[in-house]
Every structure is written in structure tokens, then in C-alpha cells.
């Protein structure tokens, strides 16, 4: 089975390198097809590994040594177990679709080849992230996806806003990465290894305080990649990148890496329920916080980005409360419907000449029926309506919160479910129905090419049916992950399901009802709360005023005032003092007999005084 592991891992890299060879030449359809094929091969290998792991056992290989010094010894080791294989299949599946889709989407881009090189490099990094069998290997992938994310957000580097957003994403992630590194250091000095199996086997022997710190540090790492509050602002800005990138990296795969980390390190987090509770609370907060920003935003992609943020919050609730398999399940279903939603949004953008303001669209259903249907499916799945995928996974998370007795968390998620349904259908209504506002701007919408639509159908299919695999998913993943025991009564569960479905449905109905009648009046735009939400609670502003600007000012101050005027000036002062005292002393040697005699007298007096008071030999 090792060969399949290596194929799954390295096929994307080969694709990326080959495409990179053409990076500076003009568009070549070959790079798109070649990389897509290799990603598909990687997907097939992942499926084979999935069957193998299910039927037999996990696969673990050590490829070669990497770093060894002192007691530390780290190698490139990869493991395909129940968790990583699920991630591999999800990642490669979505990646395949996104690659094929991008052939159409990036058709007219001058840097077509470079795009595919980066995109495949991303898949490779993501595969390293999920397949590594040690924390430092995970960290390679972790930074690798960060690099690819930087390259892809800033793909249109001529746009200043794009390269700004790329830098923001990279730097924010670096802040979190420091936390993660600290966690890795702590693990190393307490256990002496970074291999998952060794760490998880000996973590129980450690002092609970140390385990808590490990948990906290690793979670700080997860907060960056998964854009949890307060490190969330980069995700919405990351929408500057091409839409396939948003679908793949900033919805389906990379941003879920944080959830993957918590699930992977589940054996650590089960020991520290307090930290888990904090993670869950933060997740619930983000679920509502992000959803609220999605309510009023007018930018097609940003709305979906906030929705991603909110759904990540749901996943963290499940992971924090110890329901690892449910977190992973929601991660998977979310990857399907959210990437579908994004790719559909990409079609809309193309049709609208890259217009993003949903208030300037409207009535696109006639022109783009297939896209409308696909996005509709994705939105229903996202809202969590039976029998689509989102229903199964999201509902389970609410059950977990209720089962845990964390009613506040449950209530937050419950409200979040309603908001999710509302903003999803607000988007659908404003884009596809109502008045054709875009006609005012002289835009003639056109549907995407057929192969692009066909490429999306697997995702749509999965968004519909993935929920029904819940039981086999549970059976499969709990072979490795800790099981989560539900103690709720059957009737309570039924009531919960009913309540959640009801709020989701009413959210949808409210949105449809409201926007069929032309939506809300303009007046609400003057409400303070509307402005607050539209400005993202003024958090980006706050960061700019309180962190970015002071940092720049302080840096300049340190350079101009401290370094030049204090440190360097004192060095120069020493030199100048010596120089000027030399200049002055030179005057003694004037050759003027009377002044030289005077100096001679001074010298004699000094020597006499010394002779009287300083007599070490006596």
C-alpha cells in the first residue's frame, strides 16, 4: 500500500513542478489538464487507501530522516489512518473539482500556468499536513499551505489590495504559528518525541498543568489557520484571491486544518476538558459573531467567507466538547457544500464581469439556471435542511452541545442556525431573483461553460447525499477517535431536531418572504447596529489604529531616535571625544618655551603628589 501513499502524496507535487516550468510562458491548456489529472490520480489513490484502511489496517511509512540534533530526531514519516484518509479523500476530491473548474475560470488569465503550479503546490502541502505522523511534519504542511495561501491570495499581484490581503493572511498565521511552535517545544521537552503515537501514549503521564499548556499552545496555532476570533480578519480579506482559491483554500481545506489539528490531538484534549470548554465557547461565539456579519454584507464572496468562519465555529464546538468524529464529519460535509457555493459564486462573478455587490445583481435565475440550482442546493445544505448533508452534521453538533449541558452554547448555535439560513437565502434571493438590477449597468449575464457545470455535479451530489453516510462514517472514524457518548433521551433528540429544523426553515422563509417584496427599506442602513455589522464590529479598524499604525510609528521612532540619536551617537561621541582631546592636547606641543616650562611644572607636581600618596611597594 506504500506506493499508493506515495502516489497520493507526490502526484500533486509533480504536477506543481511541471506547471512551474511553464510559469513564465504564455497560457498552455496542458498545464491545467496535466495538474488536474495528477490530482485526480491522487484522489483515486486516496480512495484505494480508504478501502484498504477500512478493510485492513493503517499504513505508516518512514521516508527519510530530516532533523536530528541532541535528543531530537525527526523524520519524514507519513501515516494513513482513519482520520488522515478521510482528510485525504476530502482534500483531493474538492481539489480535483477545483482544478477542473479553474481550467474554465482562469481561461483568460495571462498567468494560467503559474496558477496551476501554485494550486497543486497547495494540495501537496495540504497532503503533508494531514498525512504526517508527527507534529513537525504537520508543521511543514501548516507553513506550506500558508505559503501557498499567500501566493494565491496575492495571485493578482498588480492589485495592491490583493498583496496587502496576502501579507495580512501570512502574518496573522505566523502569530498563531508561534503558539503552535511553543506547543511543539513543550511536547518535545516533556516527552522527547514529536511522533503522534509516542506523544499520545505518554501524554497521560504528564502533569495536567503541562498538558493544559500544550493544549492551549496548539489551539493558538489552530486559531490562526482556522481564523478564529481574534485572528479572523484575514479570512474575509483573503477573498481578494481568485474564486477557485477561495473555494479550495479558504473554505474547504486549509481553514479546516485547525479543526483537523484538534481532532488529531484529541487524546491530548480529552485530558483537559477545561481547555476544551474554552475552545467550544470560542467556537460558539464565532459561529454567531461571523454569521451576524454575513447578514448585512453586500459582497458576494465575503458573505460566504463569513459563513465559513461561522461553520468553523460549529466544528470547534464539536471538537472542544470531545465529539471529534462529529467535528470531522461536519468538516467533510462543509467542504462539499461550501466549495460548491463558492464555485457557483465564481460563475456568478464571471457572468457579472467580476461585480461582487449582490445588490447590483438580481434576476439571474433565467440566465444561469444550472448555477442557480447548484448554489441553491449548497445553500439548503448549509442551512441544514433535511435530507441534505448539512442537516446531519450540524444537527449533531447542536445535540452535542445540549448533551453536554452547555445550554448557552446550544442556544448560540441555535441562533446561529437561524442566521445561517437567513443570510444564505438573502444571498440567493438577491442574486438570482427579484429585479434585474444589473441591466442598469449594461451587463449581459452568461452561464459558465458546460464542462464547468459538470465538474461541479459531484460536489452537488455529495452535498445532497453525504449525510446518509453518517453511520458508516461513525463506525469508521471511531476506530481511531474517541467515541462520544450521547445520554440524551430519544424524545429530546427528536425535539431538538425539530426545533433546529424549524428555526432554519423559518430563517429561509423569512428571507424569501422579505426579499420577494423588495427586501428591507433603505432606512435600516442608518441603524447603528447595521453600521456596526457592516464594519465588522470595527475590528479591522481597531487593529489598524491600535496595532499596525503604532507599530510603524514605534519602528520609525526606534530607528531615527533610539538607534541613530542614542546608540550610534554615543559611539560617535566616544570617537569625537578622543579625537578632540587629542586636538586639544596637541597644543601643549606648541614649541613655545614658556608654556612648555609651565607644563613641565604641572607634570612635576603631579608626579610628586603621586609619589607621596601612592606607594604600593612600601
Amino acid at each position, binding site marked *: 500500500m506504500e506506493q499508493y501513499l506515495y502516489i497520493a502524496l507526490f502526484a500533486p507535487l509533480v504536477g506543481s513542478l511541471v506547471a512551474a516550468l511553464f*510559469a*513564465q510562458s504564455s497560457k498552455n491548456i496542458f498545464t491545467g489538464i496535466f495538474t488536474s489529472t495528477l490530482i485526480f490520480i491522487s484522489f483515486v489513490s486516496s480512495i484505494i487507501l480508504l478501502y484498504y484502511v477500512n478493510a485492513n489496517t493503517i499504513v505508516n511509512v518512514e521516508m*527519510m*530522516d*530530516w*532533523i*536530528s*540534533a*541532541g*535528543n*531530537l530526531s525527526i523524520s519524514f514519516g507519513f501515516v494513513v489512518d482513519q482520520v488522515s484518509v478521510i482528510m485525504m479523500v476530502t482534500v483531493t476530491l474538492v481539489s480535483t473539482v477545483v482544478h477542473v473548474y479553474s481550467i474554465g475560470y482562469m481561461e483568460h488569465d495571462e498567468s494560467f500556468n503559474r496558477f496551476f503550479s501554485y494550486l497543486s503546490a497547495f494540495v501537496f502541502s495540504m497532503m503533508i499536513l494531514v498525512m504526517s505522523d508527527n507534529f*513537525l511534519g504537520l*508543521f*511543514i504542511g501548516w*507553513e*506550506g499551505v500558508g*505559503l501557498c495561501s*499567500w501566493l494565491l491570495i*496575492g495571485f493578482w*499581484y*498588480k*492589485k*495592491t489590495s490583493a*498583496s*496587502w490581503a496576502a*501579507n495580512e493572511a*501570512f*502574518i496573522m498565521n*505566523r*502569530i498563531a*504559528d*508561534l503558539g503552535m*511552535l*511553543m506547543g511543539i*517545544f*513543550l511536547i*518535545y*521537552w*516533556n*516527552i*522527547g518525541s514529536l511522533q503522534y503515537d509516542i506523544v499520545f501514549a505518554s501524554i497521560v503521564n*504528564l*502533569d495536567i*498543568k*503541562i498538558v493544559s*499548556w500544550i493544549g492551549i499552545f496548539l489551539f493558538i496555532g489552530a486559531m490562526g489557520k482556522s481564523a478564529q476570533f481574534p485572528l479572523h480578519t484575514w479570512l474575509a480579506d483573503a477573498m481578494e484571491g481568485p474564486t477557485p482559491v477561495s473555494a479550495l483554500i479558504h473554505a474547504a481545506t486549509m481553514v479546516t486544518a485547525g479543526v483537523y489539528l484538534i481532532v488529531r490531538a484529541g487524546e491530548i484534549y480529552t485530558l483537559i476538558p477545561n481547555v476544551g470548554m474554552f475552545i467550544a465557547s470560542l467556537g460558539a461565539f464565532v459561529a454567531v459573531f461571523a454569521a451576524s456579519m454575513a447578514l448585512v454584507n453586500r459582497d458576494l464572496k465575503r458573505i460566504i467567507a463569513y459563513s465559513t468562519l461561522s461553520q468553523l465555529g460549529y466544528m470547534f464546538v464539536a471538537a472542544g466538547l470531545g465529539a471529534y468524529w462529529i467535528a470531522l464529519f461536519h468538516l467533510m460535509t462543509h467542504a462539499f457544500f461550501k466549495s460548491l457555493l463558492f464555485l457557483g459564486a465564481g460563475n456568478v462573478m464571471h457572468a457579472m464581469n467580476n461585480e461582487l455587490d449582490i445588490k447590483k445583481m438580481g434576476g439571474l435565475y433565467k440566465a444561469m439556471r444550472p448555477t442557480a440550482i447548484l448554489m441553491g442546493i449548497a445553500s439548503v445544505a448549509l442551512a441544514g435542511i433535511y435530507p441534505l448533508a448539512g442537516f446531519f452534521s450540524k444537527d449533531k453538533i447542536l445535540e452535542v452541545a445540549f448533551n453536554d449541558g452547555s445550554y448557552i452554547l446550544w442556544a448560540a448555535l441555535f441562533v446561529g442556525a437561524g442566521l445561517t439560513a437567513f443570510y444564505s437565502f438573502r444571498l440567493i434571493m438577491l442574486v438570482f431573483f427579484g429585479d434585474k438590477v444589473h441591466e442598469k449597468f449594461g451587463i449581459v449575464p452568461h452561464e459558465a461553460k458546460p464542462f464547468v457545470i459538470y465538474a461541479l455535479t459531484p460536489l452537488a451530489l455529495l452535498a445532497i447525499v453525504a449525510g446518509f453516510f453518517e453511520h458508516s462514517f461513525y463506525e469508521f472514524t471511531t476506530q481511531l477517535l474517541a467515541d462520544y457518548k450521547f445520554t440524551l433521551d430519544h424524545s429530546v433528540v427528536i425535539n431538538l431536531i425539530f426545533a433546529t429544523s424549524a428555526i432554519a426553515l423559518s430563517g429561509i422563509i423569512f428571507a424569501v418572504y422579505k426579499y420577494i417584496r423588495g427586501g428591507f427599506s433603505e432606512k435600516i442602513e442608518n441603524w447603528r447596529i447595521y453600521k456596526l455589522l457592516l464594519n465588522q464590529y470595527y475590528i479591522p479598524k481597531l487593529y489598524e489604529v491600535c496595532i499596525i499604525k503604532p*507599530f*510603524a510609528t*514605534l*519602528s*520609525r521612532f*526606534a*530607528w*531615527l531616535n*533610539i*538607534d541613530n540619536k542614542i*546608540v*550610534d551617537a554615543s*559611539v560617535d561621541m566616544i*570617537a569625537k571625544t578622543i579625537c578632540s582631546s587629542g586636538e586639544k592636547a596637541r597644543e601643549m606641543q606648541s614649541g613655545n618655551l614658556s608654556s612648555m616650562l609651565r607644563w613641565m611644572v604641572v607634570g612635576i607636581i603631579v608626579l610628586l603628589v603621586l609619589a607621596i600618596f601612592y606607594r604600593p611597594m612600601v
Partner: protein
Amino acid sequence: MDYILSLIIFFPLVAGILGFLVSQNSIRIYGISVAFIEFMLTIILWIGFNGNTDGFQFVEHVTVISHFGMNYHLGVDGISLFLVILSTFMTMIALIGLNIKKDVKNLIISVLLLEMTMVGVFLSLDVILFYLFWEFSLIPMLYIIGAWGSDKRIYAAIKFFLYTFAGSILMLVGILYMGYLYHATAGVWSFSIPDWQLLILPFNTQLWLFGAFFLAFAIKVPMFPFHTWLPYAHGQAPTIGSVILASVLLKMGTYGMVRFLLPLFPDATIYFVIPIAIIAVIMVIYAAMIAYAQEDMKQVIAYSSISHMGIIILGIFAINAEGVTGSIFFMISHGIVSGALFMLVGCIYDRRHTKKISEFGGLAISMPTFATIYGVMLMASVGLPLTIGFVGEFLSLIGFYKVSWILTLLAGTGIILGAIYMLSLYKRSFFGEITNEKNRNLKDLNGRELAALIPLVVLVLVLGIYPKPLLEPIDFSVKKMIVLMEKKAVTQEAKEFIVKVNSIEGGL
């Protein structure tokens, strides 16, 4: 193989003197050939080097002044081996990239003499010999900055010379006192490092000697607040001067710390761990902030060097195999990466005759290959895994974590601040539309520049993925040294410290 070390040291000297006979037209190819042969000699040295043997190898010992125990004594171990290879390699690369027409013959001869002194510093086992090379290295550099630099070159050259020289004088006093102490204890004169390593000194004496040596090394590194000569030197030096200065000359300071401070004065070293670490942390953060504020591309890299040297010092003063091995590896990797970055700045300076960031913008459009290589080096500089920059940084930090987690956390902000100044530099110079028409028709890298830069790119990736060939011999020598330190330490605290920082378990 018996006299290979002498050959490595004196080949550039002889070739440099013979260089006066070579005509101006063929001097470049002559210089590159000499540097290449020299580099090959060090590769042969590496092949012949036995990674599993105690102590120094290829030792040469010729008595010079027997009465005072001053000898011609050379040797190499895992700690110095790769610094020697780095010196010869970077000299070769810098000469390949050389693009100066004025008095190029004298320049190349200066560079070859400089190469001799650098190699000599790393290979000397006699302290007087070490000191000779250490001081002599200032002279070629003084000329390189003073004769081929930009407008304020004389000021920068003199500042560089006097500042580092002042520190070294104190070291000379320390060396003589140490020699005197050896004579007082053993009854004979010796200035040999292996002899000195066996000398056990009382704690108070160690403190004084530590201070004398440390100051010289600290100025060379340069550590905060002795760093202000560096921005001037880099700002004024020609590209080749900056490349050699950043990649090798600064490492002489950190090499001195590993070679002298740790094994000779273990108790004093451990006594000063925390104060020095605090200075190192200040260096990391302070220099990174100043780098962010710079308007000149070369100064950003100059200050980033100071910031990275802070992490190297932290690794050295971790006193465990992880940290010290990591810091030595980081010396190598920083040599390669900062050398490459200075060369890249040189490439754009040759085209535009300015280094001001505000003059650039949109360079990725006109010079895509240049932007790509710059991007690779940038990522290595911010320490992305699988590039050479990560290994040393990671090991240095993990090593120091055992000493103090809070200082490691603070020094770790270097990875964030590093990303901030580097990415902002990259964005301002390479991204966006071309705002300055002068940048529109710039030629991408030419063959000469690629020949110099491609080997560096390859090394950055290869050693990032497979650092083992370097790490193994370094780690072996470092472990031996730490055992020696533990044996030699006179205070109980120092012994306990060494045991503590070298063992797993125990926490936050």
C-alpha cells in the same frame, strides 16, 4: 592530506600575490578559478573528515616560539568544518557575481586575502594565530569598503575598523592573561586551544576573562548595543563586501563564542546566560522593528541580519546539543541566505543605481525570475520549513526553550516580525503596478547573476530538506563539547544547569 589545512589557508594568499602578475582582462576568471579550487579543497577536506572521531582532525603543529608556547597549530572539527566550507563557497559565489570594473584586480586580490584570513580564523588552534587572522581580516575589508564603497565609504570603513578593533584589543589582553594563567598552573607556556580547554579556572577569574572575550565577539556579531557599525558598513560596502561581511565575517563572532566562551569558561557562561539572552531577545525584536522602518532595501537586510544573529546567540547560550548545533547550522544557513539577499539587492542596484524601496514597485512584472529567486530567499529568511532557514531557527529556539520559555516566546516573535518586514519589503518592491517608468524595461537576471544565485537556491532547498550531512558532524562535536563543559564546571549550579538543559522532562 597531511598539510591540507595549510594548503587551504595559504593557497588564496599565494594566488592573491600571484594575481598581481595577471592582466586586468583575465583577473576575473583567475579569481573565480582560484576560489573554485579553494572551494574544492575544502570539499576534499569534508570528504576526508571523519564524523565519528573525537577531537580535532588534520592537526598540524609546528613550533614557532617554543619559549612562549606560541605555535603554528591548525585543526578542524565539526564545529569549524562547515564554517570553512561556507567561507570558501561564499567567496566563490561572490566572485562569480562580481560586477565591478574599477580596479577590479586589486579588489579580487583583497577578496582572496580576506578569504585566507577567514579560513585561518576557523582553522587556527593556537590562540595567537587565531588572533592574527582575526585582526588581519579587518584590513582587506577596510579596503573593500573604503575603496569600492559608495559616498560615505571612508566614514563607514573607519568606523568598521576602529569599532571592531577596539573590541579585539580587549580580547588580546584576555588572551595574554589566559596564557599567563596557564603558565602559572601548568608551569609551561601554551596558547593552544586544546590545552586551554583542559584548564580549570576559578569562578571569579572566569568572569573577567569571559568579559574580555565576550566584548570582542559581541562587537563582531554585532550584538545590541554594539551594532551600529554594521548598517554603515553594509550601506556603503560594494555588493561583494556585503555578501562576505554578512555571510562569513559576522559568523566569526558567534564562532568565537562557541569555541572560546563555552568550553573555556563554562561557569561564567552559565552565569551570564540570562543577561545575554535578554540582550539577544532585544536584538531580535529591536532590529526587526528597525528593519521594518527602513527605506533602503539593503538596510532592511542588514538589520534583519542583526535580528537573526540574536537567535543564533540564543541557541549558543542554550548550552544544550539542540541549541548549539542549531545555532551553528543557523550560522551556515544565515550565511547562505543573507549572502544571497545582498547579491539580489546588488542585482537591482546595478540596474537602477538606487536601493530605495520607494523607487521600485511592480518589479515582478519586469523581472519575474529575479522576483522568484528573491521570493525563495525571502521564505528562507523568514524560516519556512523545508528551506534551510527553518532548521537552525527551530533548533536554536527549541534549545533555548529548556532554559527559559518566556524568553523563547519573546524571541519567537522574531518569526512574526521577520515576516512583517520581509513581506512588506517584497510587496512594496515587487507587487503592484509599475509606478516608476524606469522599472518598465529592466532586464531580468543575466547569465552571470544566475550562475551565482542558482547554486544558492539549490542549497537553500536541498539543505532544508536534508540537513543531516551537516547536522551530524556538528552535533557530534557539540555533544563532546558539552560533556567537557560539564566535567570542567567548578560550580555546582553550572553542573546542574548543564544536566538540566540537556535532559528531557520537566516543563514550562
